[in-house]
């Protein structure tokens, strides 16, 4: 998955209508809630084989940081 492909995938994972960029601040997203964090954990695990904890996700600030966790 490329960075360009990651953004719409991540938008679907979060179930948000906000068009994401790598600079989008997670804290600015209404949908960055516990459901979204758990969905992100499952997404990183299933698509990239990366296991993260909720605490790791809480420490991230932008969508680009999530992409970096995925190794993109």
């Amino acid at each position: 998955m490329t960075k360009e492909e990651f953004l719409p995938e991540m938008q679907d994972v979060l179930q948000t209508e906000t068009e994401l960029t790598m600079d989008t601040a997670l804290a600015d997203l209404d949908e960055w809630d516990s459901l979204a964090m758990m969905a992100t954990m499952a997404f990183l695990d299933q698509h990239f084989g990366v296991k993260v904890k909720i605490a790791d996700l809480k420490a991230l600030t932008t969508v680009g940081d999530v992409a970096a966790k995925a190794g993109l």
Partner: protein
Amino acid sequence: MIKKFSSVKISGMSLIVPEREISIYDELQYYGNSEKKAERAHKMAGFWKRRVADFDTTPTDLGVQAAENLIRSMNLDKSKIEAMLLVHQIPDFAGPCTSYSVHHRIGLSKDCYVTDIIQGCVGWCFGLLTAFQMVASGTFKSVLVINADTPAHKLSPDDRINAPLFGDAGLATLVEFDSSADETTFNLDTFSEGYEAIIGVGRGVRCDFDIRDPEDVRQLTEKFETKNGRIACLAEGYMDGPAVFEFSTQKAPANIKELMAFLGTTIDDYDQLSLHQANKQIIQTVGTNAGFPLEKIPFDCFENFGNNTMCSIPSTILLSLKEKILGDSARCLCCGFGNGLVVCSIDLHLEHMKCADINVYKKPSDHKTAAEWRQYWREKFINT
């Protein structure tokens, strides 16, 4: 721990759910008072409808009715039931064993062995594992297992994290000797280092109030806000959601894969992966991590009844495979995971069952409310 049994089968199951059905649209307060947010929670985690008992209905009310329905539907001779196991979490009274009053209410014989098994989400698997041992040993020909839990009906509406999740239910399962039964294999893993992750803090004696000190009661019932926006008190249950998510999505798939490797089975051997219905997100993550395709991982129970803890695996089977297990056969890879922390998967064949019912609870005419029970006991105390 892998244990295999032969010549034992499940011959009938009867589920009871409460009459009251609550949909996400009835409790938008948990979803930011927004239909759109509620629908997002439906799509992401399966929140949809749940069945919740009245405040005065206890687990045994549901469990006894499930057993009565099973006995009627299978035309069982009550006097010949040799053993009954009651699997539950919170007793009607703090001693004796709740199974005695249930034995009395069902009208079982004095020769019937009864005992309680205190378990949570994995309670159906535990009841079966014990019943299968009793029958496989040759000591008992049949064992009636009752599972009953009401995690939902007394949850505070302030608890926006847990309140929309749970449902109440009771279930009766008959386990019997059958020399032609397919083998059943259990895989049980105990992770007791996580025992604090889901716990009923104020419902046991460790944090119990001292009857001489009213301050204790205040400490147990005083509300406070948690960092994730939950209004809680010590008398309610505690759950570390992220820890439970991480545990479930890692330990349950590993347990399932270990059982399949032991048996040499593949995904194609199973009609479905019948998982504990924690929520759709956890169900699908556990299932896909175990290598199953989404179409074999139903979440019917979570969407229709809520997370009804120890009844969720059989609820899923009864909702999605009823005709098949009655008229033909199905092979399910079941997996329960939850408070303990514990995981148990079962390679289970269900064939030509004599009962696979789902019924709605009908409150008996002599049902007493909690206040009426208090009055009943007050008079007993006074008159003794």
